[in-house]
């Protein structure tokens, strides 16, 4: 069995600088990332942090590469109790200018073979990245239903 790898590409009518900002600044992420405050504007060795809408810390992961506004890589280990057993996976963002738009490629890999987190992120990224695109093109993120697991978790936190 090969190791799970998630790849998602989206094209956004905004320059790479704007996409970079949205991926790294909490004040912007909370407008499209379903209320999550995600900070990832540090240097290599600094941490990506994410807080849920109820203020629970969801991530505290090292930034592995940062080349604004081209490439961002960080570890991914949700700080949820039921996910404790899995080692950190890895998220890479590649931003390429395409006319005056951005081609954004997200690769999420380095999972354990039987990863539970892989199933969750495979549903989560299309929703988050669709909402990011909507936010940058229209000024409004989506109210899309989060995947069921995350909804249950949000309900449990509240």
């Amino acid at each position: 069995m090969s190791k799970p790898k998630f790849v998602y590409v989206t094209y956004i009518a905004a320059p790479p600088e704007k996409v970079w900002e949205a991926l790294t600044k909490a004040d912007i992420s909370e407008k499209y990332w379903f209320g999550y405050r995600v900070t990832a504007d540090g240097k290599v060795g600094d941490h990506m942090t994410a807080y849920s809408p109820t203020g629970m810390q969801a991530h505290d992961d090292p930034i592995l590469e940062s080349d604004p506004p081209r490439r961002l890589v960080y570890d991914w280990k949700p700080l949820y109790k039921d996910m404790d057993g899995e080692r950190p996976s890895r998220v890479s963002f590649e931003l390429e200018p395409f006319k005056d738009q951005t081609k954004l490629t997200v690769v999420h890999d380095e999972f354990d073979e039987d990863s539970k987190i892989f199933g969750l992120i495979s549903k989560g990224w299309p929703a988050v990245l669709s909402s990011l695109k909507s936010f940058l093109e229209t000024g409004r993120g989506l109210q899309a239903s989060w995947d069921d697991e995350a909804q249950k978790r949000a309900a449990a936190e509240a």
Partner: protein
Amino acid sequence: MFDESKFKPKTVYVTYIASTPEKVWQALTDPTFTREYFSGFAVEAEPTAGGTFRLRAPNGNVHIEGEVVDWSPPRRFACTWTVVGMPDFRDLPPCLVTYDIEQAGESVRLTMTESHDWDIPKAILSGGEAGWPAILSSLKSLLETGKPLKIAMAPPTEMLAAVKALKA
């Protein structure tokens, strides 16, 4: 009756759109919409299972031809595809393209699934892998902003080479 079960999903793309299922259905099946976001191609679909499906290039030539397999507005549209507009591609087995449209909160979840009934080489799949994100990103922009994206794409060279190699 067309047997979908022989086809295995190879490429899946999910996007969420701030729209209604009816509008997403229209964007997939109405040529005035597809011309805007699908490289100028005009869809022609007979509104019934077993009907003819075509994508016509801007110069009027039929580029893709197939059969409507499922016509269930506004939830599911499926059709077979044969690329008849490119000589080396005409003899490839048809693929199955399925669009599932679901309400998801206040948005619509659109799932495109490209399936094949043969052991298709990875290199040939690269055409769809590169093309679907661009086409469906542009469809989403069109429905949300009224403006499609600027996308001009050539088929990947590795795909062209792989199809040629099949014939050799």
